[in-house]
């Protein structure tokens, strides 16, 4: 799946986009965050506290307990601050 990161999540991971194939046991966005946090020191920093993160699946905001169900694009980011 394509993963996109924004704002300080992007900065902590060190890249804005990557392609990853998480193991089958990763079923939800929250589980994806947990798995990503084991992938590098940068990932560990970005994904240490899921309470600070929000997500979108295929460009729609979703709660973190949402099943991934074949998602093509998952974005992880802090709460939005536009306007």
């Amino acid at each position, binding site marked *: 799946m394509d993963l*996109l990161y*924004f704002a300080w999540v992007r900065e902590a991971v060190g890249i804005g986009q990557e392609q990853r194939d998480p193991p089958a046991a990763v079923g939800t966005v929250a589980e994806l965050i947990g798995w990503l946090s084991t992938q590098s020191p940068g990932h560990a920093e970005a994904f240490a506290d899921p309470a600070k993160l929000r997500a979108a699946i295929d*460009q729609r*905001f979703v709660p973190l307990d949402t099943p991934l169900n074949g998602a093509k694009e998952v*974005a992880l980011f*802090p*709460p939005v*601050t*536009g*306007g």
Partner: protein
Amino acid sequence: MIRVSIDPAPIELAMELSALEERGAGGVASFTGVVRGDGGVTALELEHYPGMTEDALCMLAEQAMDRWSLLGVTILHRVGRMEVGERIVFIGTAAAHRREALDACAYLIDRLKTDAPFWKREWRGEDASWVEARQSDADAAAQW
């Protein structure tokens, strides 16, 4: 008619307001967000999620068109770096009467704050920090 744009270029107020007036409206309401220099802020930088941002703003505009009798909605958001005093965001609504235009305009800016994927970074000279989301913005959006 809906106009949505996400652009690093400055927002031209007079042109946007005139375009809304030309839709045959009896009333045009607008909100303009401007970079504040509070707490030593020298500039803002706006990041967004290309593709999703445009869809999210179009969806908001459509929701406003469905809820109020509007003749036009314009939502413009700048991205990139902006200095103090520069415009960040413009919301304009055109309707036959003031109430629809004013209410829809307030709805759009309240919901834009929580429903569109933008992230703001404040610069103070050479130092930058990401702005944290505020509960008051979530509360304002929820009231609609």
